[in-house]
């Protein structure tokens, strides 16, 4: 399970990545989670199973959705409340649900 997170500069999501990795470990899910900036995302897209956007780059959603559809990758925006609370478990669950 490869989860790609995208935010403005790829830095604020890194905190979320840590939390999600923790959550995955606790749940016994093997997941590869990493974060990049919006500009870099395209290059990473092929390695991802799910693409999640930070709420502050919501405006990129339609662009990434197109890219995602072409590759069969689900794309969505992270719930702002979970994002703001850096709720790793909740975002992980969200990613898993998207993949299903």
């Amino acid at each position, binding site marked *: 399970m490869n989860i790609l997170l995208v*935010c*403005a*500069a*790829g*830095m*604020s999501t*890194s*905190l979320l990545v840590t939390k999600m990795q923790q959550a995955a470990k606790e749940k016994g899910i093997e997941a590869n989670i990493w974060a990049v*900036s919006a*500009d870099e995302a395209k290059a990473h897209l092929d390695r991802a199973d799910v693409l999640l956007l*930070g*709420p*502050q*780059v*919501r*405006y990129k959603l339609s662009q990434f959705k197109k890219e995602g559809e072409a590759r069969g990758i689900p794309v969505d925006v*992270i719930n*702002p*409340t979970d*994002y*703001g*609370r*850096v*709720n790793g478990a909740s975002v992980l669950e969200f990613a898993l649900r998207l993949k299903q």
Partner: protein
Amino acid sequence: MKRIDIVYEKLKELTSSNNEWISAQQLASILKLDRANVSSDLNKLWKKGKVQKRNGRPVLFSVVRQKSSEMFLTKLDELMYHQPSLAIAVEQGKAAILYPPKGMHMLILGETGTGKSMFAELLHEFSIEIRKCSQDAPFIAFNCADYANNPQLLLGQLFGVKKGAYTGAAEQKGLIEKANNGILFLDEVHRLPAEGQEMLFTFIDKGVYRRLGETETVRSANVLLICATTENPESSLLTTFRRRIPMNIYLPPLRERTTEERCHLIFHFFREEAIRLGKEIHVSANTVRAFLCYPCPNNVGQLKADIQLACAKAYADYVTAKKKKVQINSPDLPHYIKEGLFIAKKQARSLVFQYRYYIFSPDREEMSFEPNEADYQNIYESIERKFNELKAHGVNDDELELLMEIDVENYFTQYMKGVNRRIHTGNDLAKIIDPPIIQLAETIIQQAERALRKRFAKKVVYGLALHIQTSIQRIQNGKKIMNPHLNKVRMMYKNEFNLALDCMKMIEEHTGLDLPIDEASFLTMFFVLDNEAINDHEEHVSILVMMHGNGAATAMADVTNHLLATDHVKAIDMPMHLEPKEIYERAKMLVKQIASKKGLLLLVDMGSLTTFGELLEKEVGIPVKVVSAISTPHVLEAARKAIVGYSLEEIYEDVKNVTPFYVNRPLWNGDEQKQEKFVIITACVTGKGSALAIKKVLETYLHFDNEFVDIIPIHVASEKDMQMRLSQIEKHYRLLCVISNVPFLGKTPYFYIEEVLSLRAIKSIQKLIDIEETYTKMIEILTNHLQCIRASEGIAAIRCCFANIQQKLQINVHPHDMIGMVLHTCCMLDRLIAGDNSVQYEQKEKYIKENEWLYHLVKKELHSLEKKYRVNLTKDELCYIMKFFEYCKTNC
């Protein structure tokens, strides 16, 4: 007549006059009836509540003395009658006592001196009066603060002690045991130590307890608990209490009660003192005024103590023969009470005291007045006296005249405003005023119109009718009517005054009352006043609200019209199925009707509606301005300014600048805040009742953590008063939003009561709560993560900057999007401070060049962050932020 009636009549004859008691045997022998029958009748009557009985041997009976109204008034009812602000509390208290089977425990909340102990005692009396408890039911009061630092002693007091429980312990009954079948009043219950709480909770839950040192026996007692506290009911300790004691009774502090209530308290306390001293007490009008208005932080208790002190001092002067009678004049009062006089002057509503001295007598219930011989008809004397009094205060003649004039004018403008606000339709009017009086007012106005050859606005009829009704009531109640301006009025408006005299005769004929000549000068004011009221017909900027959806526009217009007591705001709803063209035609029709030369302000939400302005301007031929993305405050602001005659340009500019509804500002200044807890204020001008009701609605429909958000209902007198109260509350809380029925233009988001009651605002309020909760959680998380800055401080500063950017850009970023951006920026700051400048933005120079103004704006607004953290924000970082706002702006 049935036997039982005969028994009752005889008992009434024998016992009603002078509080006598009689046994069944005595009554039976007087009536020559069998004792057993009489006794059974008496007991039946007792059950009906018509007879009271006194236990003993023999049992004595007496008729229940009824008030003139044939109603059985308990002391609580009396309290409610004199102190309407306590009505809710009284009803709650009664309900709790009557709650089957044994009553409900209560928690009384209120500041010091609001009368919690007295209220508890009255509840006890009430429970006896209505026979919920027996005559001798105990009332035990205990102040938990007494032994607060010795829990063992306190527990012993409360629950009793077993012999030998500790060295030298004697067997001791606890207060709970003593209060069996009665009431235990625990004052300052928040001082109860933790050990005591647990035992008390067991008792509350199961009705059983143990004496200190007892292990085997479990005792039970039937006790109704009344707890009282001055603490904030939301404080952590009390929440556990509140869970177990659902009945919370709030006693409002003195400042939330009406002037009439305070006046009644003052008179009551003076009379009490008169009885205590056994002497007449003469109190000057100014003294009463001072007591009415001085700030009295410790409430009724302090008021009583201050009055006692004043009386004691006056008594001392009397005993030492400094004065001939027990007399209190305002100069004798302590400084802080005298302050009340200045406050009284500042108050718009006039506090009318037409007597020089109020005399409280130990023998008579009613007070008398001095000088009694001074006939109020003799207005000259009264004015002269007022003059002299004011002169003694060092006021010169010109000022004096002005002061008195202001009083009268004030009365009138306030009065007409009140009429306007209260009455919108004839229907409403008929509810308040007797129809014959309305007819009378109409006839008078008709006559006046003929005689003065001018038209009067409809509201003058309403005003006049209301005025006549109150005058009649005043006279019937023996209150006086006087107008110190009689002469001036008579001179200035000869015609109107003569007309008023005629009208007065009509009123006298109609009511059979004699009216003082002063009344004519009041009537004159009605006829004169309308000259200015005619200005009402001056043209104003028209206001039209148009919004998508069913009823949104109408609702906004209604709220505004209702609040401002006008019908100036018009609305057109635009249901989604209608074509814009159709809507436009409707709008055009309406605009043609309401158009004024001063122009039209069109308030719309979005889309095609924004283009209507130009079209209307061309086709109707009046200036039109359009403001889009509006909410109720915009409409309110526009209407308020339009009514008072602002120009279209002015209104347009002002409305544009109204802070939007869902303000994304941080709820505090950029500085860090110590207050952790949020608060929602429900404020009400009509009394705390509706504020409380709103609180209940909010509690029912909102999801929130009690630890995080408080809801505080307050009663406010005016917008200004509200500002003051809010700034006080802000010392302890962070304001989340305000719900009120007064227009309130502050930085805090606010909602109208109507919006909450209709549940329209619930979603928005929930959003506010969720967002703030998210930020709080964000702070917690970031605190561990950030290395260089403090999360709480950083987030506050960033939110503040972003709010400013939004304001400058005139956009409203969705708060959800903002959360992400704030988190991003906070991490970014921390990173930069740590020296990591690695983030790149592709083609940043090009992007900056294309959006130069935005670059400068963002850079300028974020400069405060740079300064605060002594760090340089790189162009790359700024570009990311710019990009965010640029997107928001194009998509708003």
